[in-house]
Structures are given as structure tokens and as C-alpha cells.
């Protein structure tokens, strides 16, 4: 199996901050807004370098979405930054009408997504946002897996003409994808070719899926491994081709089963080539306080659970 090397743990939100800073220097049309979370979103560099293009709107996310829509109508490319829960569920109607239905070029930077937000507990651990966002017509949903990919996705989001929901996280995680990689929205990233089982992962679960594939390899099982950074539009061809080859699919994500990537892929495969599947995701419950790694293990979102899911398909 292909080697993937952890070059050191880095948080994906810092990848966003680095991408935004780069955009600030390269694209005078990029503006940024935050709802009292400039530091948490790593927007400090952009704010310091471009105070005229940075807007602190206070703890008022609905207004932030609307202001961004207005700036987009005026020809700017606004990035709005807050925690994923407040960037999705709290403002779904504003995003629906002022952004998606109005086709305004707003980029939603949603940090601290998922259970790895950790100690703050369930009020802040959004596990529904992928579902909420992928239901909206016009919306692109991106969930990159590490620092480098998040930075690349941030640059790509600015180039895309239309709404983008960019989901990333709080804790440091292995940084293993190439620096300065191209990021093609809507394109699956094949991490390994194998014939026995397909493992599809997104976000923080991609590194766990790599560890799972390594372990399965030691048992003589070859994994077809796919990183789905763009959840919507989904690279259906890549998913269908892999499912046809292996005949069984595991989908791993830091989200509820309901509305998640697994359900989306199940919907595609049910119509194109019905395939046996396992979901490594959270089933119909809220999270709780704890350390990220501890929570990932407790809620079954780690390499060990991906291995188990794959083996259960092959038994």
C-alpha cells in the first residue's frame, strides 16, 4: 500500500487561516467576516493585513450571512467564519434564502465541526451539518482531511463561483497530504488501489481510514481507499467504479449517519449498483464532553472500528 507520512500534527482550521491569508494577498475581492471568533477561526493574519476588508459582526450569525450576501452582490468574495453549528443549523434559513436561492457567492467557513471539538460538549459538537448543507440546492460541501488539504480547498473555494460550505475542525491531526496540492472541487482522491473492499472517508476520518487500510493489508486484504473531500457535488463515477470493483463499501465520517456522506453514497449505489455497506458514523445521538481521541474511540470513529466494519463485510 502507498505510504502516507504524518509530517506533524496541525489543525485543519489553521489550514483555512493560511489559505485565507494567502487569498487576502492575492485577491483584492476576498473579504472576511466573523461572529466573534476571529482567533478560533485563525483569521487573525487576514484581519491584521486587510482591516478594511475584515468585518467583525459580533455574536450575530444570521446578520453575518446576510451581510456576506450583500457584499457578494456588490462583487466581493466573502468568507464568513464561525463554529460549524452556528454556520449551519443556526442560520440554515438565511443560507437557504439569502445565499443559495439568491445565488450569492458566499463561502461559509465552518470550524470546530464534529465530535473532535471535544470538551465543550454536545451544544457545540455539530454532527448534522453535512446533512443540512447538502440538502440545499446550489451548495457545494467540502470536508478536507488535513491542514494542507484545507488550505488548498480554501483557495479552490474562492475560485468557485457560488456558495461553498467548507467544514473543518479544531484539534491537531496528522498532516499528510502534499503541500501546495491542487484541489479540484467535485473530484474524489484515490489514496490506494485495492480489490477486496472499498473504504471511503472524509475529514478527520481519512487518516484513520489509512491506518485501517494498513492493518487490513497485514491480514492480506487490499483496500480501495478514497478520500471524499467534496461531499457535494459527489464524484459518483469514482464511487460507483470502486463499488463495482470490490462489491462492498465502508463509509467513515465524523457525522451522524442521518444525512451524512454514507447515506449519500448509499443513495447513489442503490440506484447504480446495489452494494453491501457499513457506516462508521454516529447513530442518532448527541455527543458529550471529553478529549477528541477519547470521544472518537467511544463513538466508534477510529481505525479500529473501520477495520471491524470492513472485516464484517468480508466475513
Amino acid at each position, binding site marked *: 500500500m502507498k505510504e502516507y507520512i504524518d509530517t506533524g500534527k496541525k489543525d485543519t482550521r489553521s489550514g483555512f487561516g493560511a489559505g485565507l491569508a494567502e487569498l487576502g494577498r492575492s485577491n483584492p475581492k476576498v473579504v472576511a467576516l466573523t461572529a466573534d471568533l476571529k482567533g478560533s477561526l485563525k483569521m487573525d493574519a487576514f484581519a491584521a493585513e486587510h482591516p478594511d476588508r475584515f468585518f467583525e459582526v*459580533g455574536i450575530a450569525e444570521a*446578520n453575518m*450571512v446576510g451581510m456576506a450576501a450583500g457584499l457578494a452582490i456588490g462583487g466581493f468574495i466573502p468568507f464568513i467564519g464561525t463554529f460549524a453549528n452556528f454556520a449551519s443549523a443556526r442560520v440554515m434559513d*438565511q443560507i437557504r*434564502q439569502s445565499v443559495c436561492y*439568491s445565488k450569492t457567492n458566499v463561502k461559509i467557513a465552518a470550524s470546530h465541526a464534529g465530535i473532535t471539538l471535544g470538551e465543550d460538549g454536545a451544544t457545540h459538537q455539530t454532527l448534522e451539518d453535512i446533512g443540512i448543507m447538502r440538502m440545499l440546492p446550489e451548495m457545494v460541501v467540502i470536508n478536507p482531511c488535513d491542514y494542507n488539504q484545507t488550505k488548498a480547498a480554501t483557495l479552490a473555494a474562492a475560485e468557485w463561483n457560488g456558495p461553498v460550505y467548507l467544514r473543518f475542525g479544531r484539534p491537531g491531526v496528522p498532516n499528510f497530504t502534499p503541500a501546495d496540492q491542487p484541489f479540484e472541487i467535485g473530484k474524489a482522491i484515490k489514496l490506494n488501489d485495492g480489490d477486496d473492499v472499498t473504504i471511503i472517508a472524509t475529514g478527520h476520518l481519512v487518516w484513520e481510514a489509512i491506518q485501517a487500510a494498513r492493518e487490513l493489508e497485514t491480514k492480506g486484504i487490499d483496500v480501495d481507499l478514497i478520500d471524499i473531500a467534496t461531499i457535494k457535488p459527489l464524484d459518483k463515477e469514482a464511487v460507483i467504479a470502486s463499488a463495482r470493483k470490490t462489491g462492498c463499501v465502508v463509509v467513515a465520517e465524523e457525522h451522524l449517519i442521518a444525512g451524512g456522506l454514507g447515506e449519500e453514497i448509499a443513495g447513489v449505489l442503490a440506484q447504480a449498483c446495489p452494494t453491501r455497506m457499513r457506516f462508521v458514523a454516529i447513530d442518532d445521538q448527541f455527543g458529550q464532553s471529553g478529549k477528541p481521541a477519547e470521544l472518537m474511540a467511544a463513538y466508534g470513529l477510529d481505525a479500529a472500528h473501520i477495520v471491524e466494519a470492513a472485516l464484517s463485510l468480508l466475513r
Partner: protein
Amino acid sequence: MEYTLQQIASQVRRDIVRMVTAAASGHPGGSMSATDVLTYLYFKEMNVTPETWTRNGEGIDQFFLSAGHISPVLYSVLARRGYFPVAELATFRRFGTRLQGHPSIEKGLPGVNQAAGSLGQGLSVAIGAALAKRLNGDPHTVYVLVGDGESEEGQIWEAAMAAAHNKVDNLIAMTDWNHQQIDGTTEDVAGLGDLRSKWEAFGWTVIDADGHDFTEIERGFAEAHKRMGLGKPVMILWHTEMGHGVDFMAGTCKWHGKNPSVEQCAEAMKQLEETMGDFAL
């Protein structure tokens, strides 16, 4: 031929009543309370024409309707001003129309910048558009109309705070203060209270004017312009009457979102002079 503002407004009110009667749905009450203000805005006030209008608003004045349900008045004023054929008013709310129940950019109706209908969102959008003008060095003005009932939405007050904080002083926000909403008066339903004090407390300059008297409307806008560029956002509270212009529709919440019968429409037409020619039904 040149029409007076009164003549245009009379035709717009005819259009509104005929549109909602033909569609057997829609919101005539608030449309008729905002008719005089929107007529003045498009025929006298704003520096924009059907020829210069673009959605991004570069180099022109820009209007956002936040209370999207009063789409009939917006559509009529736009059509009468020449943004699209007056005949198209007959398609209001019909399948395939550009004149959706609530304004939409989906089908590319000229003059519409943004979808509105789910309430409370347009003021925020207008603030963003005003900030875009500031960043672009564009000296033109952004206008936005919100409903008084709509001002019960929390987002309006989020926006109020943000506009003052960001010193958005190239924006003229307006409230159609007709004191009525679906379930009753704004006092009975929600205790809306003293809007002047509320907006002033949020750091805005507030102007009051009669929204049915064109001399007063002219004064209101002139006062607002005197306060552009002074570091504070401006709110004009237009004192209006729901259903204004037709005696049995005026001053009551009953006509917020209800269409007249064919007989009631005929009765209303007797009270509103046809000045510019009715659209064909």
C-alpha cells in the same frame, strides 16, 4: 406623456388589487401602504434607470425589498418604470412566471437584486451591499424597505447593531409603519412599541414622515440625504396605513394576505383612477 406621482400611485394600486384578484392570492395590504414611497423612490429619488440597472449595483443606487410578501407593489412599480413589460403583471404567481409569489432572482426579473420572503434578512443584505459600495469607492446610496411586523425578527436588530458599529452611512433604511400584521395590530400581536426610540437606542439617525404625502416623502428623503456620510446609519419611519387607497381595505389587518373577490375588486376600481392603462387580463 408625463404622469404625476399621484397618477402613477393610483395606477400602481389598481395593478396591485387586480394582480392579487387575478392570482386569487397575494398580499395587497402592505403593498398599498408602501405604494407612495416606492413610487417616489423609483420615479423621483433613485439614481437608476431600467437601462443602467444591474444586479451588482455598480455606479447606481440600489434598492432591496426585505418584506418580500409585498411583491405586488414592487412588480407594479418596476413595470410602470419600464423594467419589464406591464403586460407581464398578468402572470403574477402563475406557473413559470418571473413574478414569483415572493421576489426571486431565479428567473432573472430585471430590477430584483435578491430573494426575499423569509422575513428579517433584507436589512443585513443591504448593509453588505452598502459596505461593498464603500470598498469600491462608489458614492451611490443603498435603500432597503422593511415591514413593521418584520421588525419583530431578531435578525433586524442584529443588523441594526452591525450597521451602527460599522458606521454604514451610505444606507437609507425605511420602515413601512402601517401598524398591522397578519394576526392583528403590531401592538396587539407583539407590542412592537416605539420604533423611533428603539432605532435611536441602536445608534441610528431616525426620521419620521408621512408615507402617503409626496411633499412629506420628498422631505423625508431630503432629510436622510443631509445625514449621509456622517458616520451613522439612517432610518426613515414612514407613517402609513395598510390597504391605503380603498376604503374597505384601509387600516385593517384583514387585507394583509387576502385577495379581494371579483366584486370587491370592481368596487376598489371605482375608488382608484385608471391613469396609465390597465394591463390586460
